[in-house]
């Protein structure tokens, strides 16, 4: 149903204004994270890290609000680094293989909370093995040791012995607390180097093209109940929103730390350059390594995520490389990354124009129709060719900046790319492929 042109125009304005705001504030890194993040790239993973081999993180529970694509806002709980204000999702913690990682949980919420580290072994809580908690009647109260309500604290530690992508999340009243947002991603970088996913030479990637796809869902009635201090019957649980890195499209493609999303710092746009391993290494467009995506599902449903035109090579899942007993590579390509609840998948990808189409030397073998005869997308350059931007017919508008390509990625359980009735939102993002350098891209 074509009824959203006004909305698109609106988002176009939001983006234009947003870019202007970003430009105005780009020198001012968000202060709250300044202490712990070394740099804030516009796209890609923003790591929160601390000195190896004994990184220590304080996670403080906070409450706040996030903005959803239909204009709604929803009350959330979250983990924040140190005394930073509320953010969603929790900070992406990056450590090195072999590190002894210490996490101090400070609880400001009116009920006990905790942090689970699925995939980590021999986790300690206050120096003793972390344990499920039971009340005096033998009833399970938490999957792990808690920080008591209203100011309690607990210190977890573990040795990050296996590289890969992990989840951290609440183990207490999880159907409420995880749904409310008490989760985040944990990345363990291998001893082989930060440019590798695992301790395998065939897991090397382009560090500037490392991306997070953290998928989640929200039932607004549950959040309203928590905000109002009312009970919520989990049997009535029904997600109405689905998010990528804590945002819905089109917010998902805004920059990291976009100023108009103060509590949703993580963008999902994947800005890359064309794969090319045939040019001489001195060429600025030599780009011989794949990009990398860390998929994380912190929801309760399968999320079959579909990157267009760009199969993912699945090289690991849940923090283990796909390899046989003798190290045989058991990776596989997928065009549909079907991650289940609680799973993480590590993906390598490379994008190039398989046909090397070029306006002068290798034009597309079809007459390009008059653009006045077509419906034009809001990211379309007007040209089939990478790096070519043409003047569009009067009345047409585009957000395309320099002839770059955009290629969509989205959840293919398509009811999951809606926001309580607003279609074409939710877990949608794009590969943005910038033209060969030098280019005119901002």
């Amino acid at each position, binding site marked *: 149903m074509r009824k959203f042109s006004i909305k698109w125009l609106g988002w176009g304005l939001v983006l234009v204004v947003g870019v202007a705001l970003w430009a105005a504030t780009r020198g001012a890194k968000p202060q709250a994270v300044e202490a712990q993040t070394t740099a804030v790239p516009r796209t890609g993973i923003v790591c929160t890290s601390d000195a190896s081999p004994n990184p220590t993180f304080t996670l403080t529970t906070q409450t706040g609000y996030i903005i959803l694509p239909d204009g709604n806002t929803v009350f959330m709980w979250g983990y924040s680094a140190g005394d930073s204000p509320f953010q969603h999702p929790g900070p992406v913690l990056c450590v090195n293989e072999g590190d002894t990682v210490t996490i101090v949980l400070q609880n400001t919420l009116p009920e006990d909370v905790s942090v689970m580290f699925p995939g980590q072994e021999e986790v300690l809580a206050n120096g003793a093995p972390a344990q499920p908690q039971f009340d005096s009647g033998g009833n399970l109260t938490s999957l792990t040791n808690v920080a008591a309500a209203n100011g309690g604290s607990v210190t977890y530690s573990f040795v990050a012995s296996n590289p890969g992508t992990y989840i951290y999340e609440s183990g207490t009243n999880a159907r409420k607390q995880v749904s409310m947002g008490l989760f985040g991603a944990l990345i363990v970088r291998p001893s082989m180097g930060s440019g590798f996913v695992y301790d395998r030479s065939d897991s090397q990637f382009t560090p500037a093209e490392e991306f997070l796809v953290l998928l989640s869902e929200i039932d607004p009635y549950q959040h309203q109940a928590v905000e109002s201090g009312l009970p919520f019957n989990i049997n009535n649980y029904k997600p109405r929103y689905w998010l990528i890195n804590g945002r819905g499209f089109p917010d998902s493609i805004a920059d990291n730390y976009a100023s108009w999303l103060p509590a949703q710092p993580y963008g999902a746009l994947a800005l890359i350059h064309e794969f090319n391993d045939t040019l001489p290494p001195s060429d600025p467009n030599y780009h011989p390594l794949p990009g990398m995506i860390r998929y994380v599902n912190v929801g309760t449903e399968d999320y079959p995520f579909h990157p267009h035109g760009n199969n993912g090579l699945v090289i690991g899942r849940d923090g283990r490389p796909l390899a046989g007993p003798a190290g045989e590579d058991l990776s596989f390509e997928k065009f549909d990354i079907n991650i289940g609840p609680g799973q993480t998948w590590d993906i390598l990808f490379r994008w190039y124009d398989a046909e090397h189409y070029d306006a002068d030397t290798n034009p597309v073998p079809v*007459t390009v129709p008059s653009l006045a005869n077509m419906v034009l997308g809001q990211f379309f350059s007007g040209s089939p060719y990478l790096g070519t931007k043409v003047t569009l017919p009067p009345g047409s508008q585009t957000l395309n900046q320099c002839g770059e390509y955009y*290629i969509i990625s989205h959840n293919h359980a398509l009811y999951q790319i809606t926001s309580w009735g607003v279609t074409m939102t939710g877990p949608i993002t794009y590969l943005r492929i910038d033209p060969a350098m030098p280019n005119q891209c901002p």
Partner: protein
Amino acid sequence: MAKNLTSNTITRRDFLKIAGSAAFLTAGASIVPHYLRRAVLPEEVVEAQGAPYDLYYAGTDGWISLPPTPAIPPFHPDNLAPPGLTTYIFGFRNVSGMDDIRKNNQKNKAQHNAPVFWVNQYNPSSPVDFRMQLTNLGLALRPDLFDAHTIHWHGFRNVIPFFDGEPTTSVSVPTGRDFTYIYRPREEGTYMFHCHVEDVEHVHMGMTSLVFVRPIQDGMTSYYPSGKYAYNDGDGSTGYDREFVMFLSEVWAEAHWADAHIQLPEWSDYRADFALLNGRVYPDTLAPNSPINAAQSVHALAVETDANGDLMTNPGYEHLQYQPHSSLVTCQPGERVLLRFANLGFKESAMTLTGIKMRVVGRDATLLRGRYGTPTSYETNVISCSAGESYDVIFEAPPYDGSSGLGYDRYLLYNRAYARSNNLASGGFGGQTTEVRVYPPGSLASQAYPNDWGL
């Protein structure tokens, strides 16, 4: 224009080139309705003359038939449906070779699933472009909408946005216009395609189907006697004797009703009232293919059409006029049968074959092998195929038993997700269910096209 260097015979494209040029010359512009003439700019005419298509699809709306009982009031059956039909759809039709009048007659006559099509893997040593032309006939029941359409080949690697059919990054095709997608499929296997315009709606409404790419290795009989393969396996491990497309889709009755009645559904309430296998629900899945013109089924199943271009159907199966694809699997003992699954529903299907093990040889158009050749194919009796996934599965037909007295042995292939297998009927079985029938040796002719029964 690249020629097919592998064959001296007249290709379908050659035929269409001749036919298309002739049609243009004889029909001329004078019979084009004025409202269409306005849309045809000179350069498009040049394209139509100089670059015929391999396939020509049209997007429009239409109606299909799902079991009318039990009813889901007020959504199913739809009270606006023509006699014998129940459910409003958007869909595609194959209008290859039709003149403008017959083509435009197909408005409001969409089928589901869309015509399955297949392409030979692009061979750089004898390069052939595959040209898929798309037009948009408009929506007869919803003239208030002006939705464009596209074809998105789901899973096509390293495509440029221009040929990806994703409307925000490229162009889409408004009513009365045409666009030609060029495909050079460099990786064989099973894919799917759909309209990507407002795809929550257009996909669910039925503008979906399966496309597969035949490997360059095809025709080489040294690996497997039939010379037919799912992949360039180099060892015959994906060789097969018969192939059957198993395309999975779903119908949420309320959403289809809403489009017919100028309403909007709340998509987060989504449910699959009907789970469809090749566009039908059991037991219609066992009904024959609509009459197929095998000679014209070079790149897609060509259903016979009447003088107006409308789809022909089999006597007794008039309700399946716009659901032409059978799902019945026929085979003989010892034969290898390839099932190509692809799911464009929104839920995971658990396709279960009783009594015969299946070997998964490919997934998402990828041969199951590690990067350095370690085999990773596996045997199973349940194919858990999620939204947007494809599976290539081979089983070997067991010996003929004959004890059923039917003249064939019968094995069931069904969706183990029972809540989507019962057509909402109490105790009944339906949805994505079909049969594998093993006939005595020598009973079946070889297949003339995918899903051909050979009977």
